[in-house]
């Protein structure tokens, strides 16, 4: 299957495109998507280590399955946060810094 990956911010600037297409064998996981993205561009590969992948508008860890038609996005670190913070449980829970 071919999936389209949306890019933002520095990732979009680096690749000069808002969307890249990636061919994946089914069934595919986020880990396989990352490997495929890393193999097409070395700089993007380095960047991926600090990025998260969103599948259907949810942060997704490496084990999440990608299906045909899934909406995929590469999420670079957001301006106020750290990668640890932007974690990906499907039901968002920040059991954190309070206050």
């Amino acid at each position: 299957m071919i999936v389209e990956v949306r890019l933002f911010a520095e990732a979009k600037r680096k690749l000069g495109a808002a969307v890249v297409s990636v061919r994946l064998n089914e069934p595919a996981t986020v880990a396989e998507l990352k490997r495929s993205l890393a193999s097409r561009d070395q700089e993007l590969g380095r960047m991926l280590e600090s990025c998260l992948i969103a599948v259907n508008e949810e942060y997704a860890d490496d084990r999440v399955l990608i299906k045909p038609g899934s909406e995929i996005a590469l999420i670079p670190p957001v301006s106020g946060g750290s990668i640890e913070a932007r974690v990906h449980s499907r039901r968002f829970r920040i059991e954190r810094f309070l206050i």
Partner: protein
Amino acid sequence: MIDIVESTIDHFTLVERVRSRAAGAVCTFLGTAREFTGERRTKSLEYEAYRAMALKKMAEIDAEARRRWPIVESAIVHRVGVVELGEISVLIAVSCPHRAQAFEACRYLIDALKECVPIWKKETWAEGGEEWIHPGLDDPRGETESVRSAKLTTVGSNSLSALRRETLAAKPETIGGEDS
């Protein structure tokens, strides 16, 4: 009220919207475009959002805040596009029966937004050049130590690391099946 807008954030109107006779306190936070970061001078900021996901995450943190505090009304609004110095890039306004609740809920909402909502900031420097701000991302163009340390001190991450370990230890999840 949750929104992502491309023009000026009318903070007065938004604060008036959350004010309520059921509340004894209104707390607001305005994020504004700062001129100096360390010794580097900013010309303007630009924000980009993954709009659909950002709105969804904003709604989730709003719901989480409402589970934790007796919020009467809330407003979470982020601006995208170019933001000039001194202008408002993000607004949180929250009303609660008592002030401690309002302060805590407001703090929670802005911190959670900054960490989890996919909105990015680009600095356009007065000295020339542009830079997307991605804490933790290797920056081959380099940045001053003061900028880097300013970024690194924004959020303590010990408890967040623990959360990450906990989340990753949880059973695998499949996203995109039943609710798509």
